[in-house]
């Protein structure tokens, strides 16, 4: 640069003044455009911090390898056969775990303070959250590609064909998008991003284990089977398995998953927006935090 030696006051005189006259305001962007812009931001974050996916992707990869080679022979007769059963479940587990990042991202924006800027701008107010969730689809695709790629290397052969795999993936993404509204709520009531991570994991681990991800639930006690039957993750796994292995699926299974997705969105999306709009202050900006039932988790004293 040629200007390195000039003082700032010269810079102010020569270049800053003309730049400041930018008062003409372009028309306000519509809701979709604003959301897509935030989606672009989320994708940029994946570019800069890919390593933050390591823990959520690491777990399913470890489980895939561990279950396939440790238990596969005992559970399904051979490791190869077990992998055919396990991999669609691992895909679901991975994407569901990655959805925690929706809450972590939102919490980070709030604790760092940048969400204050977004909230003070003349944009459709849910755009930062909706856009982030859209951008998360990129994260899900990345994680899914890794899991399916690993499966193919290990010997997974989806007999439902490419279309079956893509349809299964689409269903998993719809569910993950809906589930992530739970984590945006957590992201708004927790004090730190790592608290969101811990609580998210604590909630999701039992949900994914008490399902048909790893084994067929037939040998489990009746009460556990009853839970597994209503656990939407089981239905998602059954549907994904059926699509990936046979290319078809019972309408009821898909219906169940879509119903659960709609219910999650209907309940937690408005709750997210309520909490977001009524946020008292950024976490670092002071001691005042919204103290709703989240205090129970965070250990924050009820005032």
């Amino acid at each position, binding site marked *: 640069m040629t200007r390195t030696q000039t003082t700032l006051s010269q810079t102010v005189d020569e270049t800053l003044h003309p730049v400041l006259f930018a008062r003409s305001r372009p028309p306000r962007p519509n809701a979709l455009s604003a959301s897509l812009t935030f989606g672009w931001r989320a994708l940029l974050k994946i570019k800069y911090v890919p390593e933050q996916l390591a823990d959520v992707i690491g777990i399913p990869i470890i489980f895939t390898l561990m279950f396939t080679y440790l238990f596969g022979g005992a559970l399904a007769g051979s490791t190869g056969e077990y992998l055919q059963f396990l991999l669609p479940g691992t895909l679901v587990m991975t994407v569901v775990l990655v959805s925690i990042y929706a809450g972590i991202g939102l919490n980070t924006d709030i604790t760092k303070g940048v969400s204050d*800027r977004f909230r003070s701008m003349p944009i459709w107010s849910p755009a930062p959250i909706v856009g982030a969730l859209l951008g998360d689809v990129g994260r899900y695709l990345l994680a899914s590609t890794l899991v399916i790629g690993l499966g193919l290397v290990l010997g997974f052969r989806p007999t439902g064909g490419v279309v079956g795999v893509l349809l299964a993936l689409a269903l998993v993404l719809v569910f993950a998008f809906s589930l992530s509204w739970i984590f945006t709520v957590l992201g708004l009531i927790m004090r730190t991003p790592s608290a969101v991570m811990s609580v998210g994991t604590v909630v999701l681990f039992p949900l994914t284990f008490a399902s048909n991800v790893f084994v067929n639930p037939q040998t489990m006690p009746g009460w556990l089977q009853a839970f597994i039957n209503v656990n939407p993750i089981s239905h998602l796994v059954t549907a994904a398995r059926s699509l990936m292995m046979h290319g078809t699926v019972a309408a009821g299974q898909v219906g169940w998953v879509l119903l659960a997705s709609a219910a999650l969105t209907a309940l937690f999306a408005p709750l997210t927006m309520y909490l977001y709009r009524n946020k008292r202050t950024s976490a670092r900006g002071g001691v005042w935090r919204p103290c709703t039932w989240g205090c129970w988790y965070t250990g924050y004293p009820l005032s």
Partner: protein
Amino acid sequence: MDSHADFAIETSDLTKVFGKTRAVDGVNLTVRTGSVYGFLGPNGAGKTTIIRMLATLLRPDGGTARVFGHDVVREADAIRSRVSLTGQFASVDEDLSGLENLVLLGRLLGHSWTQARARANELLDAFDLAEAASRQVKKFSGGMRRRLDIAASIVVTPDLLFLDEPTTGLDPRSRNQVWEMVRAIVVDGTTVLLTTQYLDEADQLADRIAVIDHGKIIAEGTSGQLKASVGSGAVHVRLFDSEQRPEAEQVLSQALGVPVHLESDPAALSAQVAASPAAHKTGERVAHALAELSRSGIAVSDFALGQPSLDEVFLALTVHPTKDHVALKEETI
């Protein structure tokens, strides 16, 4: 047109309660369009809470606030399209580069991708950040960060700019740069509301200052009026030998005729020189005090007559709370 309204900000009995604390307690404020207004006060005084209410981030619990004539609760959107907020902490995304941050904001304000990129580059050049354009913001220095924070607030030049502690934590050179930017922004007609903990900063930038403590405005006026209200100056004395301090205290209080304050530094003393319309008389008395010290054989390493610091303004304003709101008159200068 409302853009030519006389007042950028008008609040009446503005109140915010958090639990049992009245964080903002009946604030009445008017800020003239085109001026720089400073909030001066310690941490937790309520400065940021007032700004957050004015920037439509927080709903008031009582009273009203208008920005360019628009109510902060009912007409939040109208206000958002005329103001910008540079928060106390990150107001840009630390994970993204400087360029990406400005493009993001340009897009959100309605620019096309091409326009947003052009405007971003223009701002990066003007704020001397062109070389760091593609660097992640978390790798910026404190001064660069703050420059980007301010650039981010003028992607579309706002009519009112909130700057919450714009120079806290900056080295003196970066602080001067930020001051120059604020001055440049004001020249172009933007009203600025800034908060600071430093009297010096408010003095440098603000046309009028409100001193805020415990959610209330305890004094309001120009910096000259504020200083005059606490006395024309403060005498600071530092001794070579801290053992002579009791003696020095006696000599000084006799010579100056005011109580002498013992600083936490065991060798330092200070005194508030009483407000006097005749400044030269203060000088005479101070000179006399220095001579008295030397006559008593007390060796002085530092002797200064200066303008009162924020601490002193504060002490003076809170020790004699005649009223909640001390209206200062022009004549006191």
